[in-house]
């Protein structure tokens, strides 16, 4: 028991790192759902592209022998910004090519298109990396100082990179909240989510707002990709699937279409996962180990959704005339 309590702060920190990552990815699902009522199943690959852009920059700098010379506080914002830009524009492009032409089609059709794009992007990244590096499992080079651990208490320490993940996630979530709630652009996004036809009567170019939504959602995913690479090092074109599914779950948990909901959902899922990974074997006397963490976390999720089918913060779309 004492041991379990002593462990708690560490489990909390790990859960937060995971949770913020899910939250960032979940925003892409939930924002797109908000304006189109459509699940962008290619979002997991948009996230992965960010991770690959990050690793390519680092490997490129390493290859040129200059990586050690660049201070990490310069490098990190550049990596995140590059990942955001690449993923954001990829998301916009995917919408233009694969979703917009199907706007009037039955709902299942763009969904299939999204799954197709997801496979296509996985194999495109695999193909390009295989030609370019002769490998598609890539490892983030370790960066000076990021692996250092800061002692916060007797049984609690946190690595610098975890702090980076948490810090930059908070920064982006705050920025996005401000953008959506306090700016004209954000008002237009909310208006399109509530009633696209009436928004167009206000002078909003709905297609541009939809592109913008993909850009922002994709950029958040790209940032998450870079942070994922920094935190967990090993990436592949198929890395996106599990975090993608979990982030999607987080979005549903929080109330799909609801931006604060995606943030809350991501954090709840990350914490559940982290707590079950650490405590499952303690609680069950060793019958279930950490490998059952997903089953445990998702069981709780199902329970929450049975009690609150619209998610923790409620669904905010779907009142169309």
């Amino acid at each position: 028991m004492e041991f379990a309590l002593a462990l708690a702060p560490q489990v909390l920190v790990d859960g937060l790192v995971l949770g913020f990552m899910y939250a960032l990815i979940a925003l892409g699902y939930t924002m797109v759902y908000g304006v189109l009522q459509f699940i962008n199943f290619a979002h997991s690959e948009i996230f992965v592209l960010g991770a690959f852009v990050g690793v390519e920059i680092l490997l490129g700098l390493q290859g040129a022998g200059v990586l050690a010379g660049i201070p990490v506080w310069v490098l990190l914002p550049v990596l995140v910004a590059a990942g955001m830009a690449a993923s954001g524009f990829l998301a916009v492009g995917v919408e233009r090519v694969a979703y917009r032409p199907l706007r009037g089609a039955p709902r299942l059709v763009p969904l299939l298109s999204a799954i197709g794009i997801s496979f296509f992007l996985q194999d495109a990244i695999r193909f390009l990396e295989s030609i370019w590096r002769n490998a598609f499992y890539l490892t983030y080079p370790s960066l000076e100082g990021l692996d250092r651990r800061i002692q916060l208490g007797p049984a609690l320490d946190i690595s610098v990179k975890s702090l980076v993940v948490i810090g930059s996630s908070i920064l982006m979530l705050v920025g996005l909240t401000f953008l959506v709630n306090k700016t004209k652009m954000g008002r237009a996004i909310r208006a399109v989510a509530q009633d696209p036809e009436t928004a167009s009567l206000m002078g909003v170019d709905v297609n541009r707002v939809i592109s913008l939504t993909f850009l922002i959602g994709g950029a958040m995913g790209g940032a998450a990709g870079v942070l994922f690479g920094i935190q967990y090092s090993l990436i592949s074109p198929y890395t996106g699937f599990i975090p993608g599914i979990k982030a999607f779950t987080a979005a549903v948990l929080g109330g799909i279409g609801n931006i604060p909901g995606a943030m809350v959902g991501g954090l709840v899922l990350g914490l559940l996962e982290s707590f079950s990974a650490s405590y499952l074997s303690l609680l069950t006397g060793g019958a279930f180990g950490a490998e059952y963490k997903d089953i445990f976390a998702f069981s709780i999720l199902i329970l929450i959704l049975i009690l609150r089918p619209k998610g923790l913060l409620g669904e905010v779309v779907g009142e169309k005339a």
Partner: protein
Amino acid sequence: MLEIEDLHVHYGSIPALRGISLFIPRGEVVALLGSNGAGKSTTLKTISGLLKPKQGTMRLNGERIDGLPPYAVVQKGVSHVPEGRRIFNRMTVRENLEMGAYTRRDGEIARDMERVFELFPRLAERCNQVAGTLSGGEQQMLAIGRALMSNPSLLLMDEPSLGLAPRLVEMIFRVIEEIRSRGTTIFLVEQNALMALSVARMAYVLETGQIVGSGEAAVLLRDPKVRQAYLGEPPESAENPG
């Protein structure tokens, strides 16, 4: 101001407008009367660009606007109060009004919001309230105020009196008169023909997608056929009115 010629609009293969032509002079209130399904809302939606005409032209001050997307029509000075109010339920009253001013870049937005509040003091009181919690009448005020925020030269109004208590209907029509007196042209779709004809200068009568009558509102008000069809008067003779 607005000139429509031989406008045809289809929903899929079903014709909704079958070659209508009409003219809306600057500075006037023009009413469009007709029963349910006659094509009144279709006409407004086509003007504002929500529906694409199959054939025909629309000119605003001589400039073609048919085929323009809705956001471009707004920029030309046409504002549409849609049927059923269609306010943004989860935004505050103020945010709704700010959405109305979406296309504007000038510095007069705050002043125009004050003018909307003068027109509808109720909205000023509820400024920071979420619009979905307003009463039906207040939502209609908000829908009209929001449309005025784009500072339109032509205001399209779709059934502004629908579902409102008589006292509010009167109030809405007083406001329509007030908006006109400030120089905005109004194209008004109404089921309440008596009210519409009392505020309009001229009117068109639409039946199954075609204009079947038009004229000065005062003349139409005395027309026995119009009185019978739209003002609920019994037929004068034993003839079958249908």
